[in-house]
């Protein structure tokens, strides 16, 4: 049968729906990003600086949570159905989780964007980290909770599909893509406990006024219990594409299936007991716990370093099969005219650079140097903003035709798009890292102060701002080209085989690798033990300090804004 949409028409419809939500969020989020890049550098300020934080909240939530996770929901649905070679057990369950996640995401978006219209009395300018005691409208926390529960249902859907497959194939190894989906979801179940407890037991009752106060350090710690693993939840779809699709696009085969499994197991084990590395400079958490979190974080580099080798080796295999020779000359034999390949390869290259700034972020005491400076968003625009986002866009050029049965509208526009993204990000993130070293803070509408100036080791602040604004502009143009290309592709006429969707077997297969790799119960058990070891004592001491519900009343962001406006007028 021709392609995915012909084999699994019902699943393809769900995947298309998740991609539509993802791409709409991408468009809005990227537009907000452009507004921010021009606003904070002082080039164009179309909004009041008070509204900058509404736009910033929208940018973070729509891109980091909605775009990435809806793409993941679609990609994982595609991966489970195609690698198990069977439809999902009950498509009504699939549509149910789509409905719940979409409703939740919509409520969150409404709560945020309502902040632009003060007369509505709704605001959620709390940024995507929603640190209490800044308080958003209850709609924000309720929508977030629905969204998380929806992702849990999606995971259940994929586990049920796996169970049905296992009943028919008692002795087979778990197909690689399904293995990746299941380990990622196990990590997700474990880590979302933190944000779910924070939202349901503390923030939601507090925003409704049922409880008076919160313990800000507790809700912040629970956020980061979830907030670092979510990074890997963004990244695992990119890894799935790098491991299983990129080698094929390069004209080769995956170098090693067992090592891919080892990598995903390591992410399941180590993604969660590391969140305290976001709190190196928090009072109330002792240095020892910070050191433990750092050690875990540093070992979490291992799966990514192994991935770098395996993925580059798979590309080299492709290049040599295509006639590439020499130590490095083979790089020229790769299919650089293919936007799906080039986008993913550039995303991987950017991830290598982001890996470096991530090492700095992970280093405990060196955190004093860069904590909450522009260095940090410089880092994650290379990782989630390029390694993940660019891989997703590039992957779409290969995936969307399988979901629609229609060919891509334009390959050259796709190629231009992925290269523009890469170039734009080189300008923007490099300048952000350098500005961070000069002490320029993140998350601010106007990093221009009255009583002092920033000094840079090389160049000038003006030059850095120009690079940030220019890079941000290129990134926005890139997203417009992407959406335009995908939109026009939907008007192409359906055809028998719009894309070559076959995936060759790995060079070194799963057979012969230790069976224990596929023992999901064992790995989940160890992961839980590691989380208990890393978090019991710090959480215990935080609760002992100020109690479960603390003594901080809420500071609703809406009243802030009104007070501020009065101050400005007066």
């Amino acid at each position, binding site marked *: 049968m021709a392609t995915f949409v012909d084999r699994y028409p019902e699943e393809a419809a769900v995947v298309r729906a998740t991609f539509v939500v993802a791409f709409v969020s991408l468009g809005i989020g990227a537009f907000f990003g452009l507004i921010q890049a021009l606003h904070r550098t002082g080039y164009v300020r179309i909004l009041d600086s008070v509204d900058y934080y509404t736009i910033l909240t929208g940018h973070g939530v729509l891109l980091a949570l909605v775009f990435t996770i809806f793409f993941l929901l679609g990609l994982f649905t595609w991966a489970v159905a195609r690698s198990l070679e069977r439809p999902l057990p009950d498509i009504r369950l699939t549509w149910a989780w789509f409905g719940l996640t979409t409703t939740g995401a919509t409520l969150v978006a409404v709560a945020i964007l309502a902040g632009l219209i003060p007369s509505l009395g709704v605001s959620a300018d709390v940024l995507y980290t929603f640190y209490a005691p800044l308080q958003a409208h209850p709609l924000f926390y309720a929508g977030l909770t629905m969204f998380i529960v929806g992702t849990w249902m999606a995971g259940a859907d994929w586990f049920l599909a796996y169970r049905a497959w296992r009943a028919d194939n008692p002795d087979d190894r778990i197909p690689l893509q399904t293995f990746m989906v299941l380990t990622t979801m196990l990590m997700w179940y474990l880590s979302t406990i933190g944000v779910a407890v924070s939202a349901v037991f503390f923030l939601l009752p507090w925003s409704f006024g049922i409880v008076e106060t919160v313990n800000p350090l507790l809700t912040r710690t629970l956020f980061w219990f979830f907030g670092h693993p979510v990074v890997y939840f963004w990244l695992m779809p990119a890894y799935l594409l790098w491991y299983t699709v990129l080698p094929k696009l390069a004209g080769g085969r995956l170098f090693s299936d067992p090592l891919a499994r080892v990598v995903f197991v390591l992410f399941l084990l180590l993604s969660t007991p590391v969140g305290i590395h976001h709190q190196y400079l928090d009072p109330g958490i002792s240095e020892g716990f910070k050191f433990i979190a750092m050690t875990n974080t540093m070992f979490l580099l291992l799966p990514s370093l192994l991935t770098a080798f395996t993925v580059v080796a798979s590309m080299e295999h492709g290049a040599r099969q295509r006639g590439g020779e020499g130590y490095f000359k083979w790089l020229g034999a790769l299919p650089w005219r293919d936007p799906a390949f080039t986008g993913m390869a550039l995303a991987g290259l950017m991830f290598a650079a982001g890996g470096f700034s991530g090492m700095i972020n992970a280093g405990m005491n060196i955190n004093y140097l860069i*904590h*909450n400076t522009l260095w940090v968003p410089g880092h994650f625009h290379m990782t989630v903003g390029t390694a993940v986002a660019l891989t997703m866009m590039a992957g779409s050029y290969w995936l969307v035709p399988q979901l629609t049965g229609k060919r891509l509208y334009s390959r050259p526009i796709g190629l231009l798009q992925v290269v523009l993204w890469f170039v734009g990000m080189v300008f923007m993130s490099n300048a952000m890292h350098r500005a961070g070293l000069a002490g320029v803070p993140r998350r601010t509408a106007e990093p221009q102060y009255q009583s002092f100036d920033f000094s840079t080791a090389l160049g000038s602040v003006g030059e850095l701002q120009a690079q940030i604004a220019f890079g941000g502009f290129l990134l926005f143009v890139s997203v417009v080209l992407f959406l335009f290309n995908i939109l026009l592709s939907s008007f192409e006429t359906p055809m028998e085989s719009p894309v070559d969707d076959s995936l060759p077997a790995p060079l070194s297969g799963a057979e012969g690798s230790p069976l224990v790799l596929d023992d999901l119960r064992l790995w989940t058990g160890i992961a839980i033990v590691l989380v208990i070891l890393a978090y019991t004592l710090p959480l215990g001491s935080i609760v002992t300090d100020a109690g479960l519900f603390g003594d901080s009343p809420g500071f609703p962001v809406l009243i802030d804004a009104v007070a501020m406006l009065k101050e400005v007028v007066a």
Partner: protein
Amino acid sequence: MEIHAYEKFWLAAALLLIVGLIATVSYGAVGAGIEMIGDEGGTVDPEALDDHPKFGDPGVYESGEDEYDVYVVAEQFAFRPGTSDPIEVPANSTVTFHVTSADVIHGFEVVGTNANTMAIPGQVATFTVEVDGPRDYGILCNEYCGSAHHAMEGTMEVVPEDEYDGPEGGD
């Protein structure tokens, strides 16, 4: 299961890198003596800072020869002291900061230096720095704290010892 020799080599190199990174940070902690902000600062009631012996009258306190304690309250959208009055300390002294928040989470960053902490209501962030020659520093809030977050700034003045006229905080 075949693992290529190069891949085994890279695994070893990657582990070496990781151990090297942890070793560097440990050297910074033990050799260079850089301590992390921890839980030594204790807790305060963010609703009753005015009744606190030090945060009730925040500022610079002399604690020994060439040693000073600086109590700073961060609040929407100012540092006390720092914003209206600069934090003033003499050159070549040891300064211990005690930073807390009266309302939401803030950041406290002495611009261009490693003095950087979170200010969390209910918690006191305590850290000690050595200041050298006279110089003016900027201070800013580096955690989003509400609609005028970008206006939250202050200054710290390190003045020559002979021009320093004593700490301002306390009585």
